[in-house]
Every structure is written in structure tokens, then in C-alpha cells.
């Protein structure tokens, strides 16, 4: 099973996106969401991302991370490096729009053949989704 982590500058946004993604599959143990800086303001926290990744890896074989803006990307990268130092599991960030990417990834992660790479690629296909 491949896990998903939604990382947004807002904890509420992350939780909401997670809620939407869970319509496509996944459960409490395989889709997680974090957001907000260490004081609860707008931002992201490396420690929280790191903790969420470690929790997800208890129930999954690898994780695809969906991120929103700027520092969320850097904080996710830093957290991944720290978690990867203690595990062989694969963790990748998807270069995708966060909501659409999360939906695609959640659907793709339900496949028994899903890999971190296949789930990340599905998320990235969302870049081409046209709304109008």
C-alpha cells in the first residue's frame, strides 16, 4: 500500500483536501494531512511533516507527498531527507496541483500494483487537467 501526505500552508486546507481525496480511497492510516507553522499560523513545520511521514510508513510501503507552495516544498524535502536517513522506504514529492493531484493519487493508490512511482505519476497527470 502506498501512503499519501498532503502538505499545505494551512492545516484546514490540508485536512479539507485530505477529506476530498479520501472519497477516492484510502483511510486514516494511509492518507495524512499536515499544515500550519510551529505556532499554528500560515506555514509548514518540518517536524510535523517528518512525524506524519513516519506514521504513514507504519502502515504503508512508501509515500507520495502533495504540496502547495514554496516553503512547503522545501520543508517537505528537508523532512523527507531526515526520514529517509532512518528507512529504506521510498518517499517522493509529486510535481502536481495539490487538490487534483491528491485525488488522482488517492485513486491510483488503491491499485494492488501501485508503487510510489506509479502514484506520483498519476498525481502529476493532474497537471494537464483543463477546467474549461
Amino acid at each position, binding site marked *: 500500500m502506498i501512503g499519501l501526505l498532503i502538505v499545505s500552508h494551512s492545516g484546514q486546507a490540508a485536512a479539507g483536501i485530505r477529506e476530498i481525496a479520501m472519497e477516492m480511497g484510502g483511510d486514516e492510516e494511509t492518507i495524512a494531512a499536515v499544515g500550519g*507553522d510551529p505556532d499554528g499560523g*500560515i506555514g509548514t513545520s518540518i517536524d510535523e511533516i517528518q512525524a506524519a511521514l513516519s506514521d504513514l510508513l507504519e502502515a504503508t510501503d512508501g509515500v507520495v507527498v502533495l504540496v502547495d507552495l514554496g516553503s512547503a516544498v522545501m520543508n517537505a524535502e*528537508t523532512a523527507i531527507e531526515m526520514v529517509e536517513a532512518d528507512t529504506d522506504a521510498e518517499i517522493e514529492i509529486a510535481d502536481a496541483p495539490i487538490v487534483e493531484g491528491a485525488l488522482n493519487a488517492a485513486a491510483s493508490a488503491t491499485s494492488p500494483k501501485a508503487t510510489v512511482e506509479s502514484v506520483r505519476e498519476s498525481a502529476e497527470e493532474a497537471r494537464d487537467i483543463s477546467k474549461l
Partner: protein
Amino acid sequence: MDETRQREALLEAIENIADRIDEEREYLTELDSAIGDADHGANLNRGFKAVMEKLEAMDDDADVQEIAKTVGMTLVSEVGGAAGPLYGGSAMTASTELEDGITTESSVAFAEAFLEKLQDRGDARVGDKTMVDAITPAVHTYKKSIEQDDLPPLEALAKAVDAAERGVEFTVPIRASKGRASFLGWRSTGHQDPGATSTLFMLEEILAVAEQYLEGDTDVDAASPTIPDEEPEEE
């Protein structure tokens, strides 16, 4: 300079940086509110407050490498914005260069490792209107002054601070292509970059401490003179 004095100088530099960030918090926030999300001052200040608490609780026998690494890790955990992984992550990575203490050689290695990690993590180049615009010329100038021009570390550091200052000025007219400011497009021109500015403040504090510890000390142990602080100690 012996180990104890290196340690003393490093701690003093970090404390002065923390104080400077606290003093300049509102100014940094003002710069950031023009082109970013107005959190740079508050984020860095929160980070350095946590750093000071960590260092106060630290063992007296911690070496400079451990101190630099702790500063980096604390910034990574506490800052919350992009400055955390940029300053903190780079300091963590570069701290390994201080294994044998702070020497002229290890300070150059630290500076280079810091810059490499910073550019890699932020995926930013000179001209993107980021802290890279201040730190790149500073590190290059420091390295060149020591390795090619054979200047004593203190003079090299003073030249590096000058270079950083010009780098900060350079961020004013250019358009941002990284970070939140890039969403503004041409409207980001005419504003000084807050990240480059905080980098300069940190370098200035390092230079001030270096002056205090190295003044008149520059030709002692010419083969491997030590300096109290590695270049981009802006962790």
C-alpha cells in the same frame, strides 16, 4: 585560537545574530510585506529564540560542529517558512566541515557547503531576487580572498560582507523569479529582498565578532590561522 576560544566566539556570534534578528524583526517584516507574506522577520525571530534556548541548555563541552548542527536543526524545526530549510538545513549540512574545529580552511569549506546546499534546496540562482543574491558573492569573495589573494581571514570576511551588501542592493531593481515574490512579476521590482537582507545582517554580526577575536591576531600561526566564525554562519 584554541577550542575554548573558538567555541566562545561561535556562541557569541550566534547570540549577536539572534539579537540582531530580534532588533530588525519589524524591518524584515516590512520588507517582506512589500513582496512576500510578511513573515520573514517573525519566522526567523522565532527560530533564533528557540536556538538561544537550545544553546543555553546544551552541554558545556559541546564542540563547534555540534553547536553549528544544533543551530541548524533548531532553525529547521522552528522557523516554519522557507528560511528554516534554507538557513537551517544548509547549516546542518555544512556543520560536518567543522569536525576539526574552525580554521581558515574549514571556514571556506563550511561556506561552500552552505552555499551549495542553499542553492540546491531553494533551486535559486543569482538574479532570482533571493538570499542567494547576497550569499553567493559573499562566499565566492571569501574563498577567492583566501585562496587566491592570500588575505588573512578577517580581511577576507570584511570583503565578503561588502560583496553581500552589494548583493542586497542588487535585489532592489530586479524582478523575483523564486519564492512568493515571483507571483508579483514586475511588481516585485523596486523592493529589497528580505532574505538577502537577513543574510547580510548575519554576516555583519559574524564580522563584528571576528574583529573582536582576531584583531591583531591575523599573522599568528600563518600556516593555518583560525578564525572564530565560518562565513555563512547565518544558520
